[in-house]
């Protein structure tokens, strides 16, 4: 099977999974205790008022009609209206997406930039201080709850040193760059950097630690293989032996594991947002669950679930691309 067909097949599977996600999320609402109207209507609402609200929201229709309506709505980008604020759910949700993406990407970039060289250094200087430091860091990193790490960072850098802000996101990177390009004013970028540093470290530490660990053990495996000896025997300089030969094969399984860990990244983003009052999908999902704002809950879960599915397909594609031995099944 060719690469293109592989991608198409995975995408079709992905769409199927997303449909499953939508269905599960939809059913979730009907299996949870409590009538949503209790949360929407004022406490002293008359039965008539309740009735009217139910009709307006289509809550009195049979289940399959509601399901069908919801599905068709989704296809046109309509996720219904927030029970609480009455605004369009889709608008609210997508307004939050950039903040979360920004955070996740910043954390991933930090993680990759630090962890891969660290893993390589650790593997090539085995049993030297650098290796012990890297191993200790990665063990601590995968064992530290990130919300606590975030709080400790706040304690040190914000409360004690008064060096970085504790929370919020006054400006997005897109606006900041826009301002920089249009007016040459870099204050926005500085502000953005100040605010994203602690959240990005908080979210990125686990991944930095994890990838360092994986890179180290993978590199140790690869460096012991005879193609490495062969590469040295033919006179290749050590940088090439390490970064072109060994690292390439190390990263192939690392990519798979990273794909599997995407869920952890998104989950980590949720709690990091909660710690730093970061206005992303995570804080939105927590708030909507607390207020039983169903259209928002459903919308958030669907957006999170489907982005997870499709990023995973991208990871698979990357894996297939870098690994010539992949068998498209």
């Amino acid at each position: 099977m060719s690469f293109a067909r592989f991608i198409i097949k995975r995408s079709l599977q992905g769409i199927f999974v997303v449909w499953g996600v939508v269905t599960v999320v939809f059913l979730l609402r009907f299996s949870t205790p409590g009538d949503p109207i209790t949360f929407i209507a004022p406490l002293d609402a008359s039965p008539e008022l309740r009735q009217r609200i139910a009709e307006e929201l289509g809550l009195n229709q049979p289940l399959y009609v509601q399901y069908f309506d919801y599905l068709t709505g989704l296809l046109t980008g309509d996720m219904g209206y927030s029970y609480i604020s009455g605004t369009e759910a889709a608008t609210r949700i997508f307004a939050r997406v950039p903040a979360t993406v920004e955070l996740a990407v910043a954390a991933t970039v930090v993680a990759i930039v630090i962890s891969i060289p660290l893993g390589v250094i650790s593997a090539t200087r085995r049993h030297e201080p650098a290796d012990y430091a890297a191993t200790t860091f990665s063990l601590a990193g995968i064992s530290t709850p990130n919300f606590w790490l975030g709080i400790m960072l706040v304690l040190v850098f914000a409360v004690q040193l008064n060096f970085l802000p504790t929370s919020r996101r006054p400006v997005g990177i897109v606006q900041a760059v826009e301002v920089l390009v249009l007016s040459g004013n870099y204050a926005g970028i500085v502000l953005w950097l100040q605010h994203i540093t602690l959240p990005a470290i908080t979210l990125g530490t686990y991944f930095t630690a994890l990838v360092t660990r994986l890179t180290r053990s993978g590199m140790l495996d690869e460096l012991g293989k005879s193609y490495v000896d062969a590469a040295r025997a033919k006179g290749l300089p050590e940088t090439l032996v390490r970064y072109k030969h060994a690292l390439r094969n190390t990263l192939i399984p690392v990519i798979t594991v990273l794909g599997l860990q995407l869920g952890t990244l998104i989950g980590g983003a949720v709690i990091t947002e909660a710690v730093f009052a970061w206005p992303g999908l995570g804080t939105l999902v927590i708030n909507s669950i607390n207020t039983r704002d169903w259209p928002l809950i459903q919308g958030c879960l669907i957006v999170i679930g489907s982005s997870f599915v499709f990023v995973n397909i991208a990871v698979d594609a990357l894996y297939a691309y870098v690994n010539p031995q992949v068998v498209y099944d």
Partner: protein
Amino acid sequence: MVSPRTWRNLRRELRGSALAKIGIVLVLAIILVAVFAPFLAPYDPYQQDLGNSQVPPLGFSTTENETRSEMVNGSIEVVEEEVTVNATLAHPLGTDALGRDMLSRTIYGARTSLLVGVFGTMLAVLIGVTVGLTAGYYGGRVDDGLMRMSDIMLAFPSLVLAIALIGLFGGVTIRIPDPFVVLGLAPEMPPNIVLPGTVVLVVALVNWVWFARVARGEALSLRNEEYVKAARALGASDGSIVARHILPNSITPILVLATIQVAAIILLESSLSYLGFSGANLSWGLDIAQGRDYLASAWWIASIPGVAIVFAVIGVNLVGDWLRDALDPGIEGEGGV
């Protein structure tokens, strides 16, 4: 089930690895602390003492601004005054905002973490192994169906799914009488162990998929072995074939995975408690959340339980590494393309 060879590998790996030893010591310590909490904790962890709130841990006396109303020349004035709060041996790790003893809360917190970690993992193993063995053993349609289901489960990040489930179904707690207190050995201590039941259920629901994948892989590779075919030809029932031939062979990878999952579940539980979704009223995560508001005046409230989590998780992870290195089940990167 556990062959002498396995034992030998475990012992050899342990001999060569200081980290494995540290891990075992940490895990044993946490287990002992959790089990004997009523004897180790100096106070009832729930007992408030507002007169003694925010006492710093030993070695860290702090100053605090205190406001007081005072009669000055016949009128009442509010006076602000700096007072030193001294650390005291009575509360070696200090007290929280309600004057509860941090040491006792940290010791009791081990119970919650460990109970959720162990019961949650056991439940996840039960569900996951059942589904995985069924899928792998029967293959075909059953396999496809169950695996698609697990794909859908995996599409929800476990924390998000857990929050959604607990937030929507509510946190149910189960009260288990503390045997030491019932026997009258530690009469001062709280009579019940509070197990956050929904949390146990939910962490199992979001984690069973990993076990299902491993068990399925093992079943798939074993079901065509000659001895399995032979057993089938002799008329053994599916149940007995799975129980006698396939399950025992899957134990090693599942054991290693389970250890790693205990660590993951302890972290998940603390996150849920931090966000206030667990329903438990005594948990490291919950104390961190409460300490978040007092970072400026009482840093230790949020810091100390976190240190406890880190030690517990490091211990479990080290034991997991040890088992993985010794038993080499090859599950890293399991479930890829």
